[in-house]
């Protein structure tokens, strides 16, 4: 019961809005600190890969971006689903706020992958399963945002795009498993970079730190954006008036 109450308390925009405002600086700060540490580890501690040379250092943004692109989609779909089933406005707004960042990370995964592919595989782009499914993911994000934009009534837009997000979520396991299902050029799902074991662990650490940095970045940006969405969606309510008056 108490848990229930809390849930509803924090899912009400009026409570969530100031709370989010307070949390943003912490996440932003964490993101900056982790990025600095991660880049230091990645560029100055992790050794040169004997097969790929220095080119492999793209991994420290490629893999985090690729992981975030999928993770954000799943989180977005969950929010959209909750919004659809329980008719909570805030969850739909969260889904909207996540989409642009997810699309950006998807694009970055594609971009860094392409820049990596040229020196490693000798081509910018191959029609390989993982690359293709990542491209599909980008289209799904764009589809989600376009569908929302195409519907005028905010209530209907929330429901329709929520349903789409849920249907599209089946693509995520496909991306994740694609390397096993197809025989392709792309790396398997384990980090297998050819070098000594001790060095591998520093690479792993650097990559892990960068993943956390991107995670924190995402939370910070998405919280700002969801605050914008909340202000727009509820501009005629009293709490928005109060919030604006207090200059938050």
């Amino acid at each position, binding site marked *: 019961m108490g848990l229930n109450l809390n849930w509803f308390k924090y899912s009400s925009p009026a409570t969530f809005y100031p709370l989010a405002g307070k949390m943003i600086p912490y996440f932003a700060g964490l993101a900056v600190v982790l990025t600095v540490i991660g880049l230091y580890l990645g*560029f100055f501690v992790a050794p040169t890969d004997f097969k790929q040379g*220095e080119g492999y250092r*793209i991994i420290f*943004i490629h893999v985090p971006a690729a992981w975030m692109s999928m993770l954000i989609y799943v989180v977005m779909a969950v929010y959209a689903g909750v919004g659809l089933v329980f008719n909570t406005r805030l969850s739909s707004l969260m889904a909207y706020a996540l989409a642009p960042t997810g699309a950006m990370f998807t694009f970055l995964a594609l971009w860094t992958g392409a820049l990596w592919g040229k020196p490693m595989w000798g081509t910018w782009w191959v029609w390989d399963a993982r690359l293709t499914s990542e491209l599909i993911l980008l289209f799904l994000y764009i589809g989600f945002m376009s569908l929302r934009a195409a519907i005028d009534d905010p209530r209907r837009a929330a429901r329709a795009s929520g349903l789409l997000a849920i249907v599209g979520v089946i693509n995520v396991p496909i991306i994740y498993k694609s390397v096993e299902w197809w025989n392709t050029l792309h790396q398997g799902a384990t980090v297998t970079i050819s070098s000594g074991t001790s060095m591998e662990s520093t690479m792993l650490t650097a990559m892990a730190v960068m993943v956390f940095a991107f995670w924190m970045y995402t939370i910070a940006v998405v919280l700002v954006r969801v605050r914008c969405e909340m202000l727009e969606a509820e501009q005629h309510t009293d709490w928005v008036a109060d919030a604006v008056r207090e200059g938050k």
Partner: protein
Amino acid sequence: MNWGSASEFFAMGGHAFYVWGSYGVTTVFMVAEVVLVVRRKRTITQRLGRMLRMRIGGKHEAQT
């Protein structure tokens, strides 16, 4: 420490274009996203502030 000199660092073992191309574009996108979203927040707050002032101002005039 992997690098003998700054120039060696920037050369990235001959992969400068690919590595810095990746990091550069990533930085541009992430910074741009932050700027855009913060600016959006500011414009919305300003617009709502203006609307609010107009409403309050209107009420005030009506009363006096």
